[in-house]
């Protein structure tokens, strides 16, 4: 594995050596050979440490075989010499290479240490394995260039066992060993001794990966940090490269201070946190193991919380900060930095406990945050605009009512509300990130479901009783929405409304981006602002406006239109279906499909998806509308199974309501069939039933279903009876229907066996996996899943520090809202439930993840898990491990 290649030198390696014996005060050469040092079994269970030298010329002959005994007084002299007294005779081994000498010496030294520690003799407690538990207090080799190999080996050996790591961490701290090592870096650099630098790098890595909080904090202290990262610039894994960590961290200009932070300790903490992030993201990125990752993360986290809390509590600091914006003499650069400063505070504040977070935001708002946001939104520099939308986003995510209150005041005082500023920017902004955050904000601020008071309880997101949204609980919010519809909504949707007078449907790149966002906002408003949005859609003939987009050249705009129509269809609201048919929308969509269909592309698929979303059983009127007005188009499309079936159904039932309700009910009771056809039948019927009884439910944003996904998917299935026509039809390649086709409509797979001589594999009739009870459970579990997700998210964002404009996709926004209620779980989030990381502490841990976490979760994100849980889940279970 490449993460940390351990040059494994066993003591059994042969080292070329000359053996000397002192005779008559003269060293007598006994010959040249290869030296080994190891435990030799002399009897059963009896082992002796011995040094053996095999003759080079005659491998069978031993030049030396000596037992290592305590009394012999082995000594290492210089780099290549080991001397001792063997039964009164002075002996010496002269090694050809220092490495070899070192290796043999390590063994001897180790054995001698054992003698001192254990006194029990070599046969008890000694084994071949040198990496055994070490005594709790240890002696580190002196920090010198000459002993680097020694140090490296000692550290590596000790760090194998938990007790060794503890002892090592203690020893390094108590001896201030890091400080002793640091000068060696420059010395080695001066000598251009790459080997030493590589050893130093390995040593530093081992020290940091000891994963001791105190040690890591010490390593990033002002005194040590440059030396520590300096050593790690020379990674032996990349012998040809040198990193420039010191240069990066030494650049004082990176630290910006908008308002002087008086407390030295806090300032130190800020620097330290930055270095920790650097360590985590850059220096150690490749080799970080899970425990160290979580230690670094929690250090960063606690530091950040402390810093923000301190600044929040420091009297006068906030006033000074916001005074920057009021002072006309202040340089624009400083104002810009102040916005980004607040942005970073908001990013960090996401990790605070809710009361602290509330306090901080309250403080911000009291100091005049809304004008600052306003200032930022209009700033020419995009980073400032990003900052402003980000700040707004963090507060909205936590508690939109904090911002809403200001907006109520603004409208009360007849000032332009903040929403107007958002709209203005949305319409002209070029930055996609800002655009989607603004979209998100305009949704949240206009959400009529205002909680009673205080920080939002769970039910804001989740478990509102059905239909409650009809009664807006907050008259102020209601008044604001009324005001919004009166003054702002037309401005917001202006690009859409302007289409009416537009001579052509040619858009430039700047213009055409807006419609997707407007569609998203409008769909939200339609779901939530029942009568007002209906009025708006109706009065401004919105369906026709979107219909116009079908005529433009850009396919992605046509897609926007179709998506809007499908949204209305899926609401299953007679008002909107009627609106669509009154505005004769189905014709253009059919035309679009006809125009596109020879091609199999995204547009044709979207059109088909639209039509398969229509529930003809539930809305006979709509079916009639389409058939009576566009029959020729449907006929023209009848080479598509779906439309063929539609025609057939229509011709068969001719205006009569099909009275198969009771039968279907029975079928449904049976449960989802085993054959896929049956499954699909049930789905389609379920959709039908849901659409009747859950009409209301689908109308507003209730959350036990996915806001977008589920409904759509249910509706995506074509009515099943037509599905298995496929084979017959394809065989002929034309639209002529055989009688078989008709029977197929009734009998799912029957025709298949007729068609093929080969025996057909029958699907064993196992019920499809997702039983209803399970499904319900899993839906409930979503919340847990979301929490977990949030913790992951938070981990990332907090560590990123520059958490600019996180997640503004629709779902992301929702998730953030949810996550914000669970801050008290921070620590577990910090401690990183190991899912996010690929690394493994071994198969065991990963196995646990794959089994204990993954099955419960439903969210897409959490399931991604560690590679074990994700891609290798089965491998791990199979016992392979990764």
């Amino acid at each position, binding site marked *: 594995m490449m993460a940390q290649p351990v040059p494994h030198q066993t003591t059994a390696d042969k080292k070329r050596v000359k053996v000397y014996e002192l005779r008559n005060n003269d060293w007598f050469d006994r010959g040249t050979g290869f030296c080994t040092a190891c435990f030799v079994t002399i009897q059963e269970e009896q082992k002796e440490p011995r040094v053996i030298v095999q003759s080079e010329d005659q491998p069978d002959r031993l030049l030396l075989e000596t037992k290592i005994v305590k009394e012999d007084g082995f000594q290492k002299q210089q780099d290549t010499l080991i001397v001792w007294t063997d039964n009164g005779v002075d002996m010496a081994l002269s090694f050809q290479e220092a490495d070899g000498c070192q290796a043999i010496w390590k063994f001897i030294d180790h054995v001698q240490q054992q003698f001192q520690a254990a006194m029990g003799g070599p046969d008890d407690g000694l084994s071949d394995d040198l990496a055994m538990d070490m005594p709790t207090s240890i002696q580190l080799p002196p920090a010198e260039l000459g002993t680097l190999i020694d140090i490296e080996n000692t550290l590596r050996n000790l760090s194998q066992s938990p007790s060794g790591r503890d002892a090592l961490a203690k020893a390094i701290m108590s001896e201030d060993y890091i400080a002793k090592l640091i000068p060696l870096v420059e010395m080695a650099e001066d000598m251009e001794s790459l080997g030493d630098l590589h050893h130093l790098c390995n040593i530093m890595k081992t020290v940091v990966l000891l994963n001791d909080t105190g040690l890591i904090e010490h390593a990033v202290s002002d005194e040590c940090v440059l030396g520590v990262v300096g050593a790690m610039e020379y990674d032996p894994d990349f012998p040809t490269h040198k990193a420039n960590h010191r240069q990066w961290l030494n650049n004082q200009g990176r*630290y910006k201070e908008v308002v002087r932070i008086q407390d030295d300790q806090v300032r130190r903490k800020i620097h330290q946190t930055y270095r920790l992030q650097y360590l985590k993201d850059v220096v150690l990125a490749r080799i970080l193991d899970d425990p160290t990752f979580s230690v670094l993360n929690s250090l960063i986290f606690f530091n950040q919380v402390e810093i923000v809390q301190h600044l929040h509590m420091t009297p006068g600091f906030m006033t000074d900060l916001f005074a920057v914006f009021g002072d006309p003499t202040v340089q624009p650069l400083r104002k810009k930095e102040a916005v980004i400063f607040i942005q970073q505070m908001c990013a960090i504040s996401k990790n605070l406990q809710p009361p602290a977070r509330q306090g901080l935001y309250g403080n911000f708002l009291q100091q005049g945050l809304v004008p600052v946001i306003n200032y930022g939104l209009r700033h020419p520099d995009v980073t400032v605009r990003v900052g402003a939308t980000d700040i707004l986003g963090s507060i909205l995510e936590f508690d939109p009512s904090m911002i809403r209150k200001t907006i109520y005041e603004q409208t009360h005082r007849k000032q332009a509300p903040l929403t107007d500023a958002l709209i203005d920017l949305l319409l002209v902004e070029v930055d996609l990130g800002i655009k989607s955050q603004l979209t998100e904000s305009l949704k949240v601020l206009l959400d009529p479901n205002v909680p009673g008071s205080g920080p939002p309880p769970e039910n804001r997101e989740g478990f509102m009783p059905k239909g409650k949204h009809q009664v807006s609980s907050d008259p102020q919010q209601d008044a604001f929405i009324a005001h919004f519809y009166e003054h702002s909504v037309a401005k917001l949707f202006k690009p859409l409304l302007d289409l009416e007078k537009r001579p052509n449907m040619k858009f430039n790149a700047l213009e055409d981006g807006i419609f997707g966002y407007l569609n998203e906002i409008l769909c939200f408003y339609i779901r939530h602002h029942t009568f007002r949005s209906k009025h708006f859609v109706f009065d401004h003939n919105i369906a026709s406006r979107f219909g116009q987009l079908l005529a433009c050249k850009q396919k992605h705009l046509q897609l926007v239109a179709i998506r809007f129509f499908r949204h209305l269809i899926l609401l299953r609201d007679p008002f909107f279906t009627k609106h669509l048919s009154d505005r004769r929308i189905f014709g253009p969509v059919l035309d679009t499909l006809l125009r596109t269909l020879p091609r*199999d592309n995204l547009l044709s698929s979207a059109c088909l998806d639209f039509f398969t979303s229509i529930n003809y059983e539930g809305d006979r009127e709509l079916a009639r509308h389409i058939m009576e007005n566009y029959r020729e188009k449907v006929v023209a499309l009848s080479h598509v199974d779906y439309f063929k079936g539609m025609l057939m159904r229509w011709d068969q039932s001719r205006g009569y309501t099909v009275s198969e309700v009771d039968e279907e009910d029975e079928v449904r009771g049976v449960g989802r069939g085993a054959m896929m056809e049956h499954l699909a039948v049930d789905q389609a019927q379920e959709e039908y039933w849901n659409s009747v009884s859950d009409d209301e439910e689908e109308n507003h944003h209730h959350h036990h279903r996915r806001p977008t996904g589920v409904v759509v998917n249910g509706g995506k299935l074509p009515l099943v009876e037509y599905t*298995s026509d496929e084979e017959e039809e394809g065989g002929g390649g034309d639209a002529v229907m055989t009688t078989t086709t008709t029977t197929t409509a009734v009998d799912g797979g029957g025709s298949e066996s007729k068609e*093929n001589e080969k025996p057909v594999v029958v699907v064993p009739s196992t019920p499809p996996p997702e039983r209803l009870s399970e499904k319900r459970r899993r839906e409930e579990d979503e919340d847990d899943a979301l929490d977990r997700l949030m913790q992951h998210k938070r981990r990332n964002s907090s560590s990123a520090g520059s958490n600019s404009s996180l997640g503004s996709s629709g779902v992301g926004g929702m998730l953030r809202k949810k996550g914000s209620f669970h801050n008290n779980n921070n620590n577990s989030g910090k401690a990183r439930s190991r899912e996010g990381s690929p690394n493994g502490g071994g198969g065991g841990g990963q196995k646990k993840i794959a089994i204990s976490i993954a099955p419960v979760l439903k969210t897409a994100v959490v399931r991604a898990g560690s590679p074990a849980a994700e891609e290798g889940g089965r491998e791990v279970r199979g016992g392979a491990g990764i």
Partner: protein
Amino acid sequence: MSDLDRAIAQLRACRPIPENDVRELCHKARELLIEEGNVVTVNAPVTICGDIHGQFHDLMELFRVGGDVPDTNYLFMGDFVDRGFYSLESFLLLLCLKVRYPDRMTLIRGNHESRQITMVYGFYDECLRKYGSANVWRYCCDVFDYLALGAIVLGASNTLSEGGGGGGGTAPVAGSDVEIEVCNADQQIISRFLRKGSSSASSSREGSQAGESQVGEGGSSPERGRTEGSSNDAAGGQPTTNGFGDGGGPPAPTNTGPPGSGASGASGGSIGNPAGAVLCVHGGLSPLIDNVDKIRLLDRKQEVPHEGAMCDLLWSDPDEIDGWGLSPRGAGFLFGADIVKVFNHRNDLSLIARAHQLVMEGFKEMFDASIVTVWSAPNYCYRCGNVAALLELSEDDSGLGVLARSNGDVNRSDGMGGQGSRGVLMENDLLGYNTAGPARRYRVFQAAPQDSRGMPAKKPVADYFL
């Protein structure tokens, strides 16, 4: 040199291109992808690749082993991003190549091509670091929404083309007999598996395949009874060994039907339809999709949903079970051999190629070679120690296997598809044409050598206030 070529050159050097260029690129890609069906039709020859996961240098190694674009026609089955340190460069390079050579490069969506997943598993952070804002991430996510959900490979030959083993390989075997060939990165043949019923004895040490490449797994890499049975004696040609007959291997899969039913693997050759098409998806099958054309009814331009057909295609896994099972991933399903066989039969597929799961050997055939997992990220996450593979399907030059697909993809097959009929995937009357699915050549390769990958690290935050 066009801007695009310049961008390609820059990305090949693993240097990100400027934000504006990314926007431009994504814009072009969108126009191109919007014209692709949910299931793209690709004609053989094609080289099919699995997950990449931001391992840029290994992607370069992949191109070295598999041939460069546009000389080789590539199909990537998703998961370009996350995990590795170079998601951005990897994805943008693939996208550039797609825009530059639309016909030689097919990209389909993986479960990691999603906003939610990339926020957690690295791509988002990487973009933020490399550009200082999340815009590039947004551009890329927009493109993700347009990526096709699957691909159908038509016209794959049931014999291997020349050139797999280059020099240094084993003695040539009658090409038509070879069903599977495994090569290493140096173009040497590691092993060959003959078609069942072939008279010639198998060539190079078949057993070595099982012995060497499996890492702690139960079954040998091409998980077929036959190869397991032949690991000691070269009995490659014995048609009698089937799912039940492999004594030495792991317990025979219990999900096979009665002998002779077609589900047991005993009915000769690979199960699946001869010369049939190959379906490529990232994850697997969905209970909501019983037929490939149903995939075409999805409006795919959306974030990957949490459930439903689109989600399942990107999340499901095959497993040794009967029917469908809950997935431990929490999304998608597990599906058994029976499901695959029925699906392949119904859709005239000879094989489903998918990615999504790490396999230590780089590839793994399951269920009588009716489905294969291809994994193209060697030493996954820089520490899993696995090898990677790509799957080559060669072109059928007999003229019998190639069928133009009538519903045209633009730039593919016949663009306008005159007849306008949405035909079945393959003509039924080809059933008797040959005896097994396409011949498959797997090229197995290792992680790019250390020196060439530079120092992986994230770009640190430049300025800080707190």
